């Protein structure tokens, strides 16, 4: 039972330890889980409130647990903890071993004790029985002695003879189970010997040890003469051979007889070999007295009163055998009986000598003779059996300790390993992050380093284009240039990405005009949209302030990215960019939802704009509206749309919709990811909605600060010439009409929109206002040719006819309309500058014609005619050519061969309007000459100012500064800087190039 209990206990302890380990591990793993969680969760975009709360809770929790973990690490350094654990483990095993040993020992001793008790019990029992039986025999022998004294000595003549005695003793043998025979010897004094011998008819014989096998009483010698004799007269049949033997002649018998008559008690001999039977036996002797003696009688009295001696022979060996057979467990123990009167040499009376020195018990035996001591020694026959119970119990305990130790060890190892792994992982993570940062930095650096030489390459290619090339070469150069530009833009994109990743991108905060940026972007894409025949339009709400503070470059980049994508994937339909204030959009969303489905720019269905900005923060979260402006910009297209499976990774860098898309449209796939980052930097959000084959709508918000001043300034000055004019837009589609109205209004004009030509006509004829401009959608104009021609003629015939324009998408707008004289065509996308230019052209104001045309030679002549110009060059031919060229434009040219001459010629007062100077000249180069000239001028200027020179002498010019332009063959930046440093005003390439010459000269002569 106890064994099972022990095992149960061990199992329970093991379980407990396991549970502890498990919970410990769980805390660690949970910890890491939470850390992971807190890292991963913020990436998700479902920022519902509860979710955020939950994340926050997790973060706090994980922070705490990590803190605990930290403490734990702090307390137990790795090494310390390991040795500590090891010591504990060894201690534990030692304890287990000791415990098992103790249990073994304890159980063994317990068993031994019971065994000993057993032995003692058995031994005592046997001893008692033996003693009892012996005493019974003893008593009987004593009784017999009384019988003899009564009937032999008390009667005269004796009532007993040998025959009677033998018969009696034979018949009462059962009363004395331990005796094998009884005999009576009478006391005969030497004086009575002869009489006695006569009376008996035999001589007293001497007891001598003779050949045992041939015991013959006849051969025995007569006893020698002694003071007294003790011849046996009666004997039981079994010992009849001892009759006539003198007991006093036997060594043992004599001593026994003497002792018995002195003591008056039964006396035992030492074990002796019995005559004739040759067995080991003990003789008990009682003295028979003449009269009753008091118990305190002296030995002398007793000797004097002695009549005879009764002796009983005890055959111990057979007797004990008989006795033990009565007991059941004879087989289990050995019994030995010893006479230990002489302690140093005990005489064995019974039992085999067994050398086994195992457990032994000794019980004393009292046979009634105080001078003789006997004892019984008992011993188990078999050695103690193996203590299986103790061994298995202790072994079980040992095994359990080892197991627990092993579990403990394994747990510690596991924990250490997990911890090591954790450290390793965190180190690796750190390294990976470092590597990522390093990668970004490397990319940034390398991109930058590539950009610089690339600019050189592009510049050189530009210059190469200006040199004389045949058609093939020009084609090559153009290709190289285009490739170079593509490479630079790609590098820029990568650089941006790297900058964003390494967190180095910072936004500028400058004032900029939002509408201008959109105009720029529109003109950038106008070519492509016209080529494809897509309608491209921008609408900016009137509530959006004129100027904003932010980073125009980056904003433009976002717009360009989004519009570029749209253009790339749109083959028909429209791309429509709208800009609103966020508050405004929030209001309008509620209102606009229903009619939006069909009412789009090109009439094609589009993706839902509202869905694209679903996840955005509500507008009222924006702080102070007077300081910051949140714009919501959406780019809507009717392109291919984004496949559903690709929508989730659209903002991941380098992820495109698919490889086929890449092959079809090119691009690196980082545009959108950069845009997203930039939008985030602008505190905005970006989202999209896309329906495959219908189109996509990207919407983003951006926060700009609002420069409150100057908002009153309103419209730009240049458009003032159209201010107050009246325009009519004929367009059945309200959205498109709204866009047109927006652009025309930017010119300061009043705009009415009508849906058809007939209503336009009625308005024109009936209206009280004069209408200056009529803009008609191409679609309306084409729909009904007769109607439109009618319209055309009616307008023409009216007094003060308005200018007529057709708004078209595609570039092929120069076709003839209906065979009649076609009205002017404005190709969309609409933008202010283009609109203004078209209107100007149509209204006949030719003012700005010069500016956008190529620079005519005429204008150069206009600039140079009559100017007096000094040309300085040491090279005659160059001088002559330069002079010739300038003369051709009507300038008056004076030549100088070297710097010195130029200096003297340019000493004020002089009448030169400009000077072209070669740089590399012998003796004095152009820089030095210029410096001297400037020094001279400075000197004279100061002196005039101080009045030391009269103004009249210097042609009434108080500030002399003749424009000096360097002529150089190699136009390098360094030269340019040096030119400016030495006081020159600019440089022209040599030989002259009309464009450049015009640019430089116009700076001074306009």
């Amino acid at each position, binding site marked *: 039972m106890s064994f099972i209990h022990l095992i149960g206990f061990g199992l329970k302890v093991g379980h407990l330890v396991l549970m502890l380990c498990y919970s410990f591990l769980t805390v660690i793993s949970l910890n890491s889980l939470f850390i992971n969680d807190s890292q991963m969760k913020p990436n998700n975009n479902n920022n519902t409130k509860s979710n955020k709360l939950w994340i926050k809770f997790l973060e706090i929790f994980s922070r705490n647990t990590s803190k605990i973990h930290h403490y734990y690490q702090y307390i137990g350094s790795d090494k310390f903890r390991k040795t500590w654990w090891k010591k504990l483990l060894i201690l534990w095993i030692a304890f287990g071993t000791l415990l098992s040993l103790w249990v073994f020992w304890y159980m063994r001793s317990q068993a031994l004790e019971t065994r000993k008790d057993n032995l003692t019990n058995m031994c005592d029992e046997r001893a008692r029985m033996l003693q009892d039986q012996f005493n019974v025999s003893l008593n009987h022998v004593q009784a017999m002695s009384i019988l003899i004294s009564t009937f032999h000595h008390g009667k005269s003549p004796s009532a007993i003879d040998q025959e009677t005695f033998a018969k009696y003793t034979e018949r009462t043998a059962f009363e004395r189970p331990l005796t094998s025979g009884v005999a009576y010897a009478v006391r005969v004094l030497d004086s009575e010997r002869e009489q006695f011998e006569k009376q008996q008819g035999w001589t007293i014989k001497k007891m001598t040890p003779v050949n045992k096998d041939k015991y013959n009483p006849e051969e025995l010698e007569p006893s020698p003469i002694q003071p007294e004799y003790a011849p046996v007269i009666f004997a039981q049949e079994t010992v009849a051979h001892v009759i006539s033997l003198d007991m006093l002649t036997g060594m043992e018998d004599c001593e026994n007889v003497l002792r018995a008559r002195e003591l008056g008690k039964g006396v035992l001999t030492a074990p002796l070999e019995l005559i004739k039977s040759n067995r080991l036996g003990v003789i008990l002797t009682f003295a028979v007295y003449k009269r009753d003696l008091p118990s305190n009688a002296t030995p002398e009295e007793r000797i004097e009163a002695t009549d005879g001696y009764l002796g009983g022979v005890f055959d111990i060996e057979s007797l004990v055998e008989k006795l033990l057979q009565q007991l059941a467990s004879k087989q289990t123990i050995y019994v030995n009986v010893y006479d230990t009167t002489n302690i140093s040499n005990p005489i064995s009376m019974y039992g085999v000598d067994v050398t086994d020195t195992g457990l032994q018990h000794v019980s004393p035996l009292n046979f009634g003779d105080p001078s003789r001591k006997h004892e019984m020694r008992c011993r188990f026959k078999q050695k103690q059996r193996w203590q299986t119970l103790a061994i298995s119990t202790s072994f079980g305990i040992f095994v359990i300790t080892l197991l627990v130790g092993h579990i403990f060890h394994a747990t510690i190892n596991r924990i250490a390993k997990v911890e090591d792994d954790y450290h390793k992982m965190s180190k690796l993570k750190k390294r990976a992050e470092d590597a990522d940062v390093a990668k970004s930095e490397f990319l940034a650096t390398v991109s930058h380093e590539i950009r610089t030489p690339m600019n050189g390459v592009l510049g050189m290619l530009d210059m190469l284009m200006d040199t*004389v090339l*045949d058609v093939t070469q020009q084609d090559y150069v153009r290709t190289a240039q285009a490739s170079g530009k593509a490479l630079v833009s790609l590098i820029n994109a990568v650089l941006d990405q790297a900058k964003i990743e390494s967190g180095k991108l910072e936004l500028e905060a400058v004032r900029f005009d939002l509408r201008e940026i959109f105009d720029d972007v529109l003109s950038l894409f106008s070519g492509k949209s016209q080529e494809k025949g897509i309608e491209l339009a921008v609408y900016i709400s009137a509530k959006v302030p004129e100027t904003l503070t932010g980073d125009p470059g980056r904003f433009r980049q976002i717009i360009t990215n989004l519009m570029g994508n749209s253009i790339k994937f749109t083959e028909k339909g429209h791309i429509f960019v709208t800009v609103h204030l966020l508050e405004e959009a929030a209001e309008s969303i509620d209102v606009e939802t229903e009619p939006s489905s069909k009412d789009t720019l090109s009439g094609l269905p589009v993706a839902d704009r509202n869905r694209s900005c679903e996840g955005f923060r509500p507008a009222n979260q924006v702080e102070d509206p007077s300081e910051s402006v949140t714009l919501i910009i959406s780019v809507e297209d009717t392109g291919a749309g984004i496949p559903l499976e690709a929508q989730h990774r659209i903002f991941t860098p380098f992820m495109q919709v698919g490889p086929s898309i890449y092959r079809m449209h090119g691009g690196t796939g980082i545009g959108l990811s950069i845009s997203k980052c930039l939008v985030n930097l602008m505190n905005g959000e970006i989202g999209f909605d896309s329906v495959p084959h219908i189109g996509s709508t990207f919407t983003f918000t951006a926060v700009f600060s609002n420069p409150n001043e100057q908002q009153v300034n309103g419209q730009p000055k240049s458009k003032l010439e159209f201010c107050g004019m009246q325009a009519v837009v004929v367009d059945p589609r309200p959205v498109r009409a709204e866009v047109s109205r927006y652009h025309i209004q930017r010119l300061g004009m009043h705009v009415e929109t009508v849906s058809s030509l007939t209503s336009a006509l009625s308005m024109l004829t009936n209206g009280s206002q004069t209408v200056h401009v009529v803009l008609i959608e191409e679609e309306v104009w084409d729909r009904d040719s007769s109607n439109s021609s009618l319209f055309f003629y009616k307008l023409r015939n009216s007094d003060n006819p308005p200018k007529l324009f057709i708004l078209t998408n595609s570039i092929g707008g120069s076709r003839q309309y209906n065979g009649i004289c076609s009205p002017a065509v404005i190709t969309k996308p609409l933008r202010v500058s283009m609109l203004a230019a078209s209107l100007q052209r149509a209204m006949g104001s030719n003012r700005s014609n010069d500016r956008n045309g190529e620079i005519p030679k005429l204008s150069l002549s206009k600039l140079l005619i009559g100017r007096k110009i000094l040309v300085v*060059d*040491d*090279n*005659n*031919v*160059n001088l*002559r*050519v*330069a002079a*010739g*060229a300038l*003369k*051709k434009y009507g300038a008056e040219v004076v030549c100088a061969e070297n710097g010195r001459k130029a200096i003297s010629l340019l000493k004020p007062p002089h009448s030169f309007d400009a000077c072209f100077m*070669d740089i*590399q000249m*012998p003796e004095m180069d152009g820089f030095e000459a210029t410096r001297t000239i400037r020094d001279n001028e400075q000197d004279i200027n100061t002196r005039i100012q101080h009045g030391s020179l009269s103004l009249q002498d210097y042609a009434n010019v108080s500030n002399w500064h003749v424009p000096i332009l360097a002529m150089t*063959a190699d136009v390098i930046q360094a030269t340019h800087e040096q030119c400016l440093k030495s006081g020159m005003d600019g440089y022209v390439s*040599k*030989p*002259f190039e009309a464009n450049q010459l015009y640019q430089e000269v116009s700076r001074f002569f306009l």
Partner: protein
Amino acid sequence: MSSVLQLQRQFIDYTTSLHNEGYLDNQFTELQKLQDESNPDFVTEVVSMYFEDSDKLLNNLTTALQQRNVDYKQVDAHAHQFKGSSSSIGAKRVTNVCAHFKGFCEAKNLDGCLRCLQQVKQEYIFFRNKLEALFRLEQQILQAGGSVPMVE
């Protein structure tokens, strides 16, 4: 009349070939454009000036390079001059060789300089011959009563 046309065609072909073979570049055309009624002999004037200068420069270069201690600065200055005037006149190949010449001067490579001098001389003589032939054609056209066509 037909001969004038023929001459004019020949003139155009010749000029085009000169352009194509790289003897002339647009600068020469520019020069031709500079010539007008007010300045009827501009091109010949400039070209003869160029020839004069060039002869002088070539002589200078030859003597400068024959010195025991060659003054590379001097040689470079001459080469620069020569390059400048050549580019002004539109003698493309001469200009190119001059650029090489300058390079060798900067590297102070006497062998290269001497080789370039030979090359420059050769190119110059070629150019001179071609140009003289061109002028002869021009004269012929003028004598035949035609006008010199402009070659773009």
